[in-house]
């Protein structure tokens, strides 16, 4: 009966057709057998898609992962974290320092100050062997000039209204200046000159050089217009020759200058503007050298030159205008952010962009003309899988080559023979921050006691499965700035009670701590969606409750947490984490000037000694001195306990065991070496040497 037969046949056929397709698809083992091409591809999974493939504009980690392969910066970090030249072959750091000639003063020998007189005095001092002048390589005299300028001032508004901005006309009479070119950067140069000249530098009064009808121009404002002294650190990069962008165009100093300008252009809305704001000028010196002058001492600025360099010939104003016209849009409204370049980038890195299917994958292929030699891997695939469990399954199935294990999986996966694992300590830390504007937290004994009541080791052991380490201060443990001799707070609830008693907090009838009739009570907040912080919150609350402190807890969505509570300083205590960089600069987080709304010192920490240290640290270009000061700062902050420093998380990255490094041996045969982690535990340092072999025969490293 025909209908019956159709009814039986149809599903059977469909079913068989679908099932047989299984036999065409390669399995995990087939990866090696069936398609040799698979061995030259590296597949990575990510939960989120990249947003902008332009290193000057991107702010998310997915985009960063791709940008690090497609673009290259002037420098990057070596295995031991020191700087290494990439697009730059070598560099020199020195300083140009400027001193104002103040003719109203006298020299130590009594003669009135003139430009020539000052120069001769200094020359005589140098000949006499004055140490500070040994730094000076060259001395020049710059003539003075006068100008009339309009500057903007802000005054407080009438009766508490918004501040008002006004234009004020000033006459600036810039006296001649002496320009010192120093061999190295010395933040104390002018202090020493001042001693040499008997206090001359200190007595320079900038308001003498600025004339304004309006008395609002203060001495500080005048000092901005006519600074008595000025430090202009200079970095001179010598660039490698013969480096090509992926389209064959040669890289030169013009591209460096263009990258800087692209970042600073306000219409591009680059998130990197603060990193480059201290730059005064980027000057190409011929095609293969560039001189970068800074407005002031700012040592962390050097590290920003790991920023990927953009190809100027594809993104300059003419190119953008042509693109706008081609797209039928108004060139005036068309900035770097709108360019198609961000979806199809061209850089000078080891891998070049091939394809990007939104929410599916991004494919990069190896760049054969890469200056250091083409990478071994032929293709890099960045696959977007939004679900964590599915990503894990994909790794087990062999269709992705790396997986970041979650803490509870570490034990199980670390010894799995199919994979090789690398453990690394993170660069950030988790802490409990206390709002020091609240009276209860103003006593350091209270803060210390709160920290002593929490058993951090227990959190590490049970919440993080041992995948974390205690930290005692604000620097990453892997850097030299962290002082390993600073002891962590002991877990000592009894001691905590004693400390609190010293501070005047005694147990009342119900068992709660109280002072002058006020109970010790506050609210601890953190963001939702983070299991670890949730657990820390619970542990802290319990620990403090046992001391007799009534703590309420509250979690809220990230945006509300940051915008309504943290940025406005509206909290008692919070649990948060910092993701740190590799430089020593803590200014934004702990300096007392950064305690306003939307600034990062939201706990309101203000310690003048720490402030001074922080300022000197960011101006210190000498490594040893900087490390010594940073360690002192670490100790100081640890004593002050504005935070209870908790822990640094560890991560375990799993790789397919077939991934190894391949280099050419002395006789040209390939040598296989294991992948080595760098000082931070990252494994991608030798990424260009990675290769996937069926049966690796490893030579010892």
């Amino acid at each position, binding site marked *: *009966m025909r209908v019956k037969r159709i009814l039986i046949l149809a599903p059977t056929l469909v079913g068989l057709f*679908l099932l047989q397709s299984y036999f065409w698809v390669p399995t995990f083992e087939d990866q090696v057998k069936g398609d040799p091409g698979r061995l030259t591809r590296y597949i990575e999974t990510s939960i989120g898609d990249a947003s902008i493939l332009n290193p000057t504009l991107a702010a998310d980690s997915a985009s960063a992962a791709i940008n690090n392969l497609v673009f290259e910066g002037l420098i990057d970090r070596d295995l031991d974290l020191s700087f290494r030249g990439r697009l730059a072959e070598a560099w020199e750091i020195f300083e140009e320092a400027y001193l104002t000639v103040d003719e109203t003063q006298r020299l130590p020998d009594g003669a009135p100050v003139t430009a020539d007189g000052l120069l001769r005095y200094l020359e005589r001092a140098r000949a006499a062997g004055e140490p500070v002048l040994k730094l000076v390589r060259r001395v020049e005299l710059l003539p003075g000039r006068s100008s009339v300028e309009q500057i903007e001032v802000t005054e407080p508004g009438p009766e508490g209204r918004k501040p008002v901005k006004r234009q004020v006309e000033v006459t600036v009479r810039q006296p001649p200046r002496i320009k010192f070119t120093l061999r190295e950067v010395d933040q104390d140069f002018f202090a020493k000159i001042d001693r040499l000249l008997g206090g001359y530098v200190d007595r320079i009064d900038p308001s003498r050089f600025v004339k304004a009808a309006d008395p609002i121009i203060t001495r500080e404002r005048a000092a901005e217009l006519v600074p008595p002294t000025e430090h202009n650190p200079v970095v001179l990069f010598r660039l490698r020759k013969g480096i090509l962008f992926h389209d064959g165009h040669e890289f030169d100093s013009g591209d460096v200058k263009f990258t800087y300008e692209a970042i600073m252009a306000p219409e591009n809305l680059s998130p990197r503007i603060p990193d480059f704001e201290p730059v005064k000028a980027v000057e190409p010196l011929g095609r293969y050298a560039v001189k970068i002058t800074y407005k002031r001492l700012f040592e962390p600025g050097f590290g920003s030159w790991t920023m990927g360099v953009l190809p100027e010939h594809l993104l300059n104003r003419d190119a953008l205008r042509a693109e706008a016209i081609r797209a039928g849009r108004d060139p005036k409204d068309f900035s770097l952010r709108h360019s198609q370049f961000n979806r199809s980038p061209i850089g000078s890195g080891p891998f070049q962009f091939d394809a990007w299917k939104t*929410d599916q994958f991004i494919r990069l292929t190896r760049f054969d003309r890469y200056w250091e030699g083409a990478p071994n891997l032929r293709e890099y*695939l960045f696959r977007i899988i*939004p679900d964590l469990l599915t990503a894990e399954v994909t790794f087990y199935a062999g269709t992705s080559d790396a997986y970041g294990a979650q803490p509870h999986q570490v034990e199980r996966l670390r010894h799995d023979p199919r994979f090789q694992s690398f453990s690394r300590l993170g660069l950030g830390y988790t802490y409990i921050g206390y709002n020091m504007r609240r009276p209860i937290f103003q006593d350091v004994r209270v803060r210390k006691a709160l920290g002593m009541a929490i058993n951090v080791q227990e959190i590490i052991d049970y919440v993080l499965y041992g995948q974390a380490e205690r930290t005692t201060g604000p620097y990453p443990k892997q850097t030299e700035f962290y002082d390993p001799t600073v002891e962590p707070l002991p877990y000592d609830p009894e001691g905590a009670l004693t400390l609190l008693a010293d501070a005047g907090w005694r147990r009342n009838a119900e068992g709660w701590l109280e002072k002058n009739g006020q109970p010790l009570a506050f609210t601890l907040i953190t963001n939702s969606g983070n299991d670890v912080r949730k657990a820390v919150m619970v542990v802290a609350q319990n620990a403090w409750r046992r001391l007799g402190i009534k703590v309420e807890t509250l979690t809220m969505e990230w945006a509300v947490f940051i915008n309504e509570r943290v940025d406005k300083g509206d909290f008692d205590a919070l649990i948060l984490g910092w993701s740190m960089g590799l430089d020593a600069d803590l200014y934004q987080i702990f300096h007392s000037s950064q305690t306003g709304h939307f600034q990062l010192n939201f706990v309101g920490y203000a310690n003048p000694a720490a402030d001074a240290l922080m300022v000197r640290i960011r101006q210190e270009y000498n490594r040893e001195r900087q490390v010594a000061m940073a360690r002192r700062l670490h100790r100081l902050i640890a004593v002050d306990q504005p935070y209870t420093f908790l822990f640094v998380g560890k991560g375990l990255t799993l790789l397919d065991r077939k991934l190894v490094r391949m280099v050419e041996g002395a006789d040209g045969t390939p040598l296989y070496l294991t992948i080595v982690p760098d000082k931070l535990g990252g494994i991608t340092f030798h990424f260009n040497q990675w290769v996937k072999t069926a049966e690796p025969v490893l030579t010892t490293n």
Partner: protein
Amino acid sequence: MLSFLLRTGWKKLWTLFFISVISFAVIHLAPGEPSQIDPMNPRFTPQQLERYRKAFDLDQPLHIQYLRFYRRLFTGELRSFKDNQPVLPKIVERVWNSLWLFLAGTILVWCAAFPLGITTAIRRNSVLDKVTTVVVFALISIPGFYLAYLLIIFVVQTFHVDVIGLRTFGHQGRNLVWSFMDRTWHLVLPSVLGATAGIAILSRYVRAQMLEVITSDYVRTARAKGLDEDTVLYKHALRNGLLPFVTMLGLIVPGLVGGSVIIETIFAWPGIGRLGYEAILSRDYPIVITLNFVAALLTLVGTLLSDLLYMVVDPRIRLEGVE
């Protein structure tokens, strides 16, 4: 035939209008004034609201808003909050991907529901019937994502093969046949999962209809006339029970479209379900609101197709024209 076509078309147009109104009305769930913003709702900050109001012309009277919204939508002026690209092209390219899932799912439902329903109806109360009933009900009752994970893990652990995404990664440049088979394999698991609910419901329906028809008078007459069992069942009983199935088929399309959110997220399938979910997470409201409309539109098309099929199958309608 023609009059049926016209009537159906007219009804569908009205439905389209109502769908557009409802999709539009959802916009107004958001707080109207900044003062109305619930501070405990993290999803709407004052800045968000500003953007929202501008994108949807909330300052204008209602009917202007409605017209403007749809005009903006179709001229590509309505842009996504996330990357500022026009909304409609983005959605259309993802619809293509989801369409394969829906198609495969519908085919599976069609192929599996009938035999299952008929067999269990014929062999009512047998062991097969009882077992099938329990299994079918279990499939309706299990949470979709739970079943999905169980299946994924089972297939991956046992067969060591990839099931995520549109196709196998790391393999390009193979011939067309291989490519087609690869995509087919990756279509299997997600569409099977999408079809389970439909198969379960529809096969029960087939069974119920068949049972009703089997006991009816004219079938008894046919049996009495001495026709063989097969002809009785398949020619007479089934033909008349066929009509409601077609309508029911139209009703599983909304289930497929709605279920695509979870299935696509789990299988990393770049379709409209996943687009909607990610748009909601990133507060990309133009996409979210438009997706509602597009999803309803797709369902409408699905039901229209099933109505057309109905027309083909129902002899009364076919003959209408003749008369």
